[in-house]
């Protein structure tokens, strides 16, 4: 029976639909492991084998250092940064690294030249290969290598119009969703890590608590509230302010709360290229604080208070010159040296400046890190104690600029090295500035005029090296 035109068309449509049907069924989204490190942020596919999650080890290590691999039968040899050697065997759950056996938790798989390791073993495997910590966040399929995490604090300052202030150690780009009982902030692209406790309570009726959790969408903070909330972000993307709708304080520096922070329909995709960029801003560290009072110059004159007062003056001077400032300590709180370094490094500032005072000597002293002779770092990771070594020349430039301005204003200045933490741990230009009185009266350290004169000179010195420090790689 000959085919009529309509029958032919029907058959053609039916055939087309038959072929196309599998493609019209939505394929499951490909899972990816997001890798965050100081060297690069990138992602790689997670594949399932025998019901377990696996990742390609070469793809994981390649952006972090020099990797070579060689497959011989069931053996797969890997060499990292010409130092670490590992030998995997297909079907075996053990790996030999630098002559020592380690347990993978599941079989190593060799697919052609590609070596697959269980995702769950990365917490233990990567530190042995990289020589530094690696923290897997399995719920959010993220791995943070070294000190790549973005930490945050959450406070609700007492006010007629309570707001939750979330202060992050690095810039963040959350998506925002209003839900019953509160507001959900999701961080699909940022290496936000958990606070000490996943539940944060604020003792406030309007915003009583917030909860940190992780899901395959990333890190999440759910802010509880009886009424509707809105969120705004500061210009530097480090401070989020969550406020009851309609009560944002006038003059707030946050963005208009009605503007969505991020398009929530955007597909989360971690960055695939190094995102470290240097803006010209300064991290000011008022040294000591809390239990650590520093030098007791007199019973009422403590170094921790003087450094805080001076930090405020210097911040004001720098901001007048258009230089953005992150103050690590704005009240009388304890901050460990490691915390100070981690916060400074996470923000990729152009200059870290630790402030000290001393009743000993005269004028201002500028200190750069005393590092072991010939200290240098190779590969993507930096030894914590000598992290500063690659940035020492920038620190010297900053010291010279500030010293020059001080001397032009008749303030004695001297540049030295010092065994002073956390200078050696900082991955940007880093100085400690120690202010001593000009005369024999230590009380001059508390003089507003004296502090102001030094703050103005230091700020001018920092501004004078903007062109040289603003391009640190």
């Amino acid at each position, binding site marked *: 029976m000959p085919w009529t035109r309509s029958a032919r068309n029907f058959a053609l449509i039916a055939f087309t639909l038959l072929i196309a049907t599998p493609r019209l069924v939505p394929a499951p989204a490909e899972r990816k492991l997001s890798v965050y490190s100081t060297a690069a942020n990138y992602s790689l596919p997670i594949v399932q084998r025998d019901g377990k999650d696996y990742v390609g080890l070469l793809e994981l290590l390649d952006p972090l250092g020099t990797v070579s691999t060689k497959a011989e039968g069931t053996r797969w040899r890997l060499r990292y940064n010409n130092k670490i050697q590992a030998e995997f065997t297909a079907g075996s759950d053990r790996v030999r690294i630098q002559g020592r056996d380690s347990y993978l938790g599941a079989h190593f798989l060799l697919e052609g030249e590609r070596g697959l390791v269980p995702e769950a073993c990365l917490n233990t495997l990567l530190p042995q290969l990289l020589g530094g910590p690696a923290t897997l966040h399995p719920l959010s399929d993220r791995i943070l290598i070294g000190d790549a995490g973005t930490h945050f604090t959450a406070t609700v300052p007492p006010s007629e119009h309570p707001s939750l202030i979330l202060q992050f150690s690095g810039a963040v780009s959350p998506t925002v969703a209003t839900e019953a009982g509160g507001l959900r902030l999701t961080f699909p692209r940022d290496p936000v890590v958990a606070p000490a406790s996943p539940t944060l309570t604020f003792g406030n009726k309007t915003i009583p608590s917030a909860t940190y959790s992780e899901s395959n969408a990333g890190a999440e903070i759910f802010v509880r509230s009886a009424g509707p909330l809105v969120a705004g972000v500061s210009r530097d993307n480090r401070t989020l302010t969550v406020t009851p709708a309609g009560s944002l304080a006038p003059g707030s520096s946050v963005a208009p709360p009605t503007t969505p922070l991020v398009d929530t329909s955007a597909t989360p995709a971690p960055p695939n290229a190094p995102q470290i960029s240097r803006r010209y801003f300064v991290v000011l560290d008022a040294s*000591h604080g809390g239990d*650590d009072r*520093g*030098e*007791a110059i007199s019973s009422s004159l403590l*170094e921790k208070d003087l450094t805080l007062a001076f930090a405020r003056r210097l911040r004001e001077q720098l901001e007048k010159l258009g230089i953005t400032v992150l103050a690590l300590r704005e009240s009388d709180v304890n901050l460990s*040296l490691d915390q100070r370094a981690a916060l400074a490094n996470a923000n990729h500032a152009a200059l870290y400046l630790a402030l*000290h005072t*001393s*009743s*000993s*000597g005269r*004028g201002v*002293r500028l*200190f750069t890190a*005393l*590092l*072991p*002779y*010939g*200290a240098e770092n190779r590969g993507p990771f930096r030894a914590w*104690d000598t992290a500063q070594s690659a940035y020492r020349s920038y620190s010297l430039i900053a010291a010279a600029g500030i010293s020059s301005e001080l001397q032009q204003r008749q303030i*004695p*200045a*001297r540049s*030295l*090295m*010092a*065994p*002073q*933490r956390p200078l*050696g741990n900082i991955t940007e230009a880093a100085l*400690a500035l*120690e202010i*001593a009185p000009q005369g024999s009266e230590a009380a001059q350290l508390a003089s507003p005029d004296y502090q102001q004169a030094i703050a103005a000179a230091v700020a001018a010195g920092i501004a004078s090296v903007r062109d040289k420090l603003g391009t640190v790689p």
Partner: protein
Amino acid sequence: MFAAALLLGTVLGLSAYAWHMRGKAATLPLAASTRPVAPPISGPTETVTLAIAYDDAGLIHLQSAQIPLPSSRQQRAEELLRALLNIYSDRASPHPLPAGADVRAVYLVDPGLAVIDINSAFANGHRSGILPEELTVVSLAQTLAANLPGILRIKILVDGQQRDTLAGHADLSGFYDAAALGQLTTQLQSAP
């Protein structure tokens, strides 16, 4: 009879001598030194270089001194620092240290590591500040490095324990590299 008389005379003589010595001991000052007993030193003096800190100028001066030194390398190290502390404990000290400050021991560990163990009075009472603490560290470490060849690294302990800082500033948590300290000493020898 003669022997008995001789014995009696000897007993009386020794008793008199003991009485004499008792009286002499009673005249010694009662204040006891808290410093550890130094090893006996014999032999001729040697010329050494002491890295002496001067607080007023914020400088280190390398000064020659003649001191008797024992033959043992470790005891020599301790004597060098003891000579330094004698200068700092003087009334006209250029770099006053707290009362009771002392070096408990110096350990020389191959290859090239010198461990200086100071007492807690030294650290707890030390003046706080980057420069004052730095001067002390450099003074101790450079005095050893300048006189004992082969020292590559220096570690400072307090009462045998690791401590984060000397008095809130100078880092004691790690090892000092002798070459880097040499560079720092050069900086500290120059007037501001």
